């Protein structure tokens, strides 16, 4: 990349782009994904400000009760916005194609896959991520139940599992394990902790 950037044939905008990409490579994102404060810090080094990003759109998201005013490349998925822009990394990227459920968050109280959503579609919406459920000192009952029932092994799918499980509490779901399994089928666990996940959910449904 640096060889290309040094070439005299490269026009200025392309060089600027590559230079910006290079400086942000440490965090693995383009400047379009950076939160406002990070971008301001960047601008003194790179002379590329957020407003110069072609096609970037202003949006406001309420994430875990906190308002975020952002400018985003419209291609930014809700998942990448949450992880890279707002830097809430509890939400995980698994398949990035709507097949695994690791990226499950709540939008206006309903569970959705943040990888198959564009962030700009959610201007003004209320988003809840795993960080918004509880704190280490005051766990959400579902988080406590996953701990008590050992509802995970590696933990990568866990935030998605818990977000789905919390949403399930408010959905039409039969009392039996089979009904829980059916409504949790969109969350894949590579470690195979399913039996304990179902136990954790049933514990919360029965005992709160």
């Amino acid at each position, binding site marked *: 990349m640096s060889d290309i950037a040094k070439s005299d044939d490269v026009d200025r905008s392309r060089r600027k782009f590559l230079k910006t990409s290079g400086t942000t490579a440490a965090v693995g994102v383009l400047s379009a994904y950076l939160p406002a404060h990070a971008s301001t810090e960047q601008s003194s080094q790179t002379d590329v400000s957020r407003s110069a990003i072609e096609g970037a759109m202003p949006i406001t998201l309420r994430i875990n009760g906190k308002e975020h005013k952002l400018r985003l490349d*419209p*291609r930014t998925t809700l998942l990448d916005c949450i992880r890279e822009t707002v830097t809430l990394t509890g939400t995980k990227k698994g398949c990035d194609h*709507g097949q695994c*459920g690791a990226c499950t968050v709540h939008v206006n109280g309903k569970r959705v896959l943040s990888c*198959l959503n564009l962030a700009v579609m959610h201007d003004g919406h209320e988003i809840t991520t795993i960080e918004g459920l509880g704190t280490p000192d005051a766990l959400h009952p579902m988080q406590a139940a996953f701990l008590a029932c050992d509802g995970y092994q590696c933990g990568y799918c866990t935030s998605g599992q818990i977000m789905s499980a919390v949403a399930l509490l408010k959905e039409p779901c039969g009392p039996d394990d089979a009904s829980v399994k059916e409504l949790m*089928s*969109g969350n894949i666990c590579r470690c195979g902790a399913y039996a304990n996940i179902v136990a954790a959910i049933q514990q919360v449904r029965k005992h709160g």
Partner: protein
Amino acid sequence: MRMFEFIRPTDSQAAVAAAAQSKTAQQGADVRFMGGGTTLIDLMKLNVETPARVLDINRLPFDKIADTTVGGLDIGATVRNSDLAYHPRVQRDYSVLSQAILQGASAQIRNMATVGGNLLQRTRCVYFRDTAMPCNKREPGSGCPAITGHNRTLAILGTSEHCIATNPSDMCIAMAALEATIHIQGPKGTRTVAFGDFHVLPGNTPERETILEPGDLITHVTLPPPMSGSKHLYLKLRDRASYEFALASAAVVLVIGGGKITRARIALGGVGTKPWRSPEAETALTGKPANDATFREAAAAALRNAKPQSENGFKIELAKRCLTHALRTAAAA
């Protein structure tokens, strides 16, 4: 993903006018309406779809379900699958639709996917989804590697020498059996299309999947009044118990009186290049006694013109047994 302009039209007229600029409303459209995004964003990430403009229609007033004056149901195009499946009237009067939706995708995807988007759900054929491979649907004239390649999950009904891709929708199979009507707002005004005329067979132009033209916006779907005393069932057979596409499915709506079938509406999923209504099965059932012999005859009639590929011949027997079992279960209910 290719860069695009994201636009939120203020009303349906603005949406239609913007979409009318597209060269096509079919594969490769340069303007796309965005509903739930569950298909479109996936395909944009794969560069299978590369629209220059994306029109967000989620805030247009098409999110209502309402009774029609004649006892049917109007369903807005942006109604979410989960809201439709759990709607009291759908559960009571159009149970086959509720069952079909709840057997599709996952709870998260059902909270996102819209009715309009599901009408336009794209095939899961692996060659269509892989831009490194030829595909007549994606790049007309490039060839169909599925015919000599991986075709276990692909279609046995309605195929052509150019395309054997399966329509993957569950919702559409129920809507075909319920004889829904699709309402479209286009540059020249509004029109309605019978469900069976909405999707088209691949033939020589597999890139064309529906009758939609540039600017056409699906606004809502109407279900006719429910058939009095009808029994409903959606049976879906697949490789795993949940969160999987159908290898074969059957939507069954039956009215039985005096031991005889008086009315039958049958559609099959997972086996057709479009949602597969079977008038052959309906004819074989109507006026006949509701017994196993009739059901088997209807299933044989439905699959009579099936054409197996190298890996999916099993689907013919599977689809027959699926329909037979669905009819038997519905009749006994």
